């Protein structure tokens, strides 16, 4: 429970119209999507299109998050966070309320999705997350406050998306926002400096959270407690190697962690229906690999021949030149 000494949060009814003071766009509120310490997110209609609007009495929060979303846009193709559509202020009852408008991401939060659809989806979703994180890291950012509540899974196609960029920090700086369970500082396993390994630690904790939905507090030596938590759950044990490596901060990139995650996945050999399919896939892949290497070898052979030809022609021409000089 927290008693705020700051301004009281607002509550806008459905149908309220938000009109921007600078860009004059009009948005009609449909319903509230969520509220946090920083502000409230509403589902709204913008000329027939569904968008999400985040409002706050604190324009600093809004501006900071907009700066992050803008940098996502600069790094093209980043699909982890929502796209930014508009930033503006709204004059309501004499006071100025800042807001920004972003893509509305409809989906289920990660924990609920896994509960409903099973842990088969776990490696896929984590792999998607690691791909997007890698992109973010290569652009000089660290996500910061990674946790299942901030991760939604959309359907058709199934894709993991992040819906809260409040904790995103530039690499090298101090992490601005964090949640203890996912913060390596809390577990005594690293600093709060923004670097890729900070996010990868959080990813490992997200996997652990999926099997310990109630989370747990730190008692004693962090890493020993976490090792035991992994050991105590059968399904977690198969991810043990990558989890331990991520918790120790030994991965240099999200891609490295993803590669090792995918290597860990093994297909069940108990069911006969699945086995043949897997084998033909493997064979097909092996065949294409072979043809590819063969073609490459042929290409190499051609290259060498051409080089020899060119060198010999040059030598002959030079020989004629010298011959001429002597004569």
């Amino acid at each position, binding site marked *: 429970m*927290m008693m*705020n000494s700051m301004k009281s949060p607002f509550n806008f009814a459905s149908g309220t119209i938000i009109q921007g003071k600078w860009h004059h766009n009009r948005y009609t509120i449909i319903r509230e999507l969520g509220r946090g310490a920083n502000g409230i997110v509403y589902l709204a209609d913008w000329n027939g299109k569904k968008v999400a609007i985040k409002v706050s009495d604190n*324009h*600093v929060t809004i501006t900071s998050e*907009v700066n992050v979303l803008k940098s996502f846009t600069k790094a093209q193709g980043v699909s982890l966070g929502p796209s930014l559509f508009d930033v*503006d202020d709204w004059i309501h009852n004499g006071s100025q309320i800042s807001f920004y408008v972003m893509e509305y991401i409809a989906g289920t939060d990660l924990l609920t999705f896994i509960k409903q659809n099973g842990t088969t989806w776990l490696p896929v979703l984590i792999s998607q997350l690691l791909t997007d994180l890698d992109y973010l890291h290569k652009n000089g950012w660290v996500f910061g406050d990674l946790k299942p509540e901030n991760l939604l899974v959309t359907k058709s196609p199934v894709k993991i998306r992040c819906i809260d960029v409040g904790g995103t920090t530039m690499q*090298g*700086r*101090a992490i601005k926002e964090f949640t203890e369970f996912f913060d390596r500082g809390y577990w005594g396993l690293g600093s709060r400096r923004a670097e890729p390994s900070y996010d990868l630690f959080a990813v490992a904790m997200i996997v652990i959270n999926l099997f310990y939905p109630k989370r747990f507090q730190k008692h004693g030596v962090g890493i020993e407690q976490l090792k035991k938590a992994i050991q105590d759950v059968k399904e977690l044990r198969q991810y043990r190697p990558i989890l331990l490596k991520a918790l120790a901060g030994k991965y240099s990139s999200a891609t490295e962690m993803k590669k090792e995650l995918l290597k860990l996945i093994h297909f069940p050999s108990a069911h006969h229906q699945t086995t043949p399919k897997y084998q033909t896939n493997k064979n097909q892949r092996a065949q294409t690999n072979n043809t590819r290497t063969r073609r490459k070898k042929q290409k190499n052979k051609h290259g060498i021949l051409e080089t020899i030809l060119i060198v010999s022609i040059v030598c002959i021409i030079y020989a004629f030149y010298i011959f001429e000089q002597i004569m």
Partner: protein
Amino acid sequence: MKTGTIKQILLITDGCSNHGEDPVAMAALAREFGITVNVIGVMENDIIDEQGVREIEGIARQGGGVSQIVYSQVLSQTVQMVTRKAMTQTLQGVVNQELRQILGNQASLENLPPEKRGEVLEVVDELNETVDLEVLILVDTSASMKHKLPTVKEALLDLSLSLNARMGNNQFSLFIFPGKGNEVEKLLDWTPKLESLTTVFAKLNPSGMTPTGPALKEAITYFKEKHLVRGYLSRHDDEFYEESI
């Protein structure tokens, strides 16, 4: 913009002051010296009464800082958040001052168009990361704080961890009130790391009243001493943040 030093007093208490000068007046005095006063009210199995709440909010308001009243479970996160928020507030005050100098008396961050605001905020963010910070921590050690002290210790260690991830330098100092024999007692001199907290806290024996006002007054004096000495050594004017907001 000069990156001076941000000076803060972080007051952690669980109730109303009942001895000595009015803490709200002391907080106003601190502000005149360019020191921001932030207050965190801690509850555990008790609740801070209305008078206590009003006092806590009053101290922060007069001190130009941030206040929060929370249960001890979330103390660590609160301490960090309050310190950072107060830093941003101070820096914004400086920025607004600069803006007024450039754009005239009506200028402020709120009145800039969103795009410009974004650019200015990037500068504030950068300052937030690089500015030097001095935090003088005042911990209430009256009788009712007995069971809350371990959590306070964890929260302060955590604060040091967070702030040391920044590029700017940090200096912390720790005072308790009431102290042994005095109203206020200094436990830690200015230091960049708070590791010695653990040993220091182990020896604490909470008892007695809550002389919040005298504690604040002592804190202001300690800040003055620090900067007086520095003044002699470097002839550097870092009273830049006097008119914070």
